[in-house]
């Protein structure tokens, strides 16, 4: 059981280093998916939200890391 838990932890750590970053990315993807799928489907707007959201999340996360350090 411990071995399985360790293996699972290793796999999760491949994708999640900073929990806040991962949650923010998932939130952006969810919002984008909602815009694309829910009526009236607006796929291009979904793409803009996805791209802009990811860039904003990256910048905000890095700046927050500096503030935490300071």
């Amino acid at each position: 059981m411990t071995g399985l838990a360790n293996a699972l932890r290793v796999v999760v750590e491949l994708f999640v280093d900073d929990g806040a970053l991962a949650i923010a990315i998932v939130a952006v993807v969810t919002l984008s998916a909602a815009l694309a799928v829910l009526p009236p489907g607006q796929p291009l707007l979904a793409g803009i939200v996805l791209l802009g959201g990811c860039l904003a999340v990256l910048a905000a996360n890095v700046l927050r890391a500096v503030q935490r350090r300071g």
Partner: protein
Amino acid sequence: MMSALPAVTAAFLASLVEAVEALTIVLAVATVRGWRPAGFGALAGFVFLALIVLALGPVLDRVPLHLLQFVIGVMLLLFGMRWLRKAILRAAGVIPLHDEGATFASETAALRDEERQRVARLDRLAALASFKAVLLEGLEVVFVVIAVGAGGRFLVPASAGALLACVLVMAIGFVLHRPLARVPENTLKFAVGVMLSAFGVFWTGEGLGVPWPGEDLAIIAFAALFFSVAIAAIALTRRRLVEVSP
């Protein structure tokens, strides 16, 4: 039709970084306990990775393309932006650079310490260290290859790029008999982080049916945007660090 070049480049660069990290540990094990446990552990790691790839390959062909693109896109975003964030923080000096020389020294010291304490079945421990290094770093290589290859059905060229990087690093490492400390690891991670994040946005959007202007060429524009934001973040972070330092 999309070119395989971006997928091959991303797989090659990502594999280069991971191969250097794995080789550092394997060399440390070989230095202290000899090539037998180091080689055995590394070989076992390779076999385990090959089994994972063989198990995943047929499954991927059965998944609908849009679903595959969406799932892989999200995973690429998580993985790529994690790398990019860390590379930005390292470039700005917020966290220390990854030092292969230091890793080699600490791994060697740890094994020597255990040797002094006459830990039972030391060769098995050494082989396990080698196995874990190859498996853990190799998992990242396997993920990158599957992620950048499967979304556009370029698994074979992406695998070739990854394999070329691993062979190159192994050849240089075995000739030099020391870790490749001069590889600009953070620069490579920065570049790969930018590429994987751009791929991630593209594939996630494709999976959601986003009509990207310029189709595949949009990846280049996304990479340029991630690069610009990352460079700006480094500059801003450095300035903030100067402001807050006494």
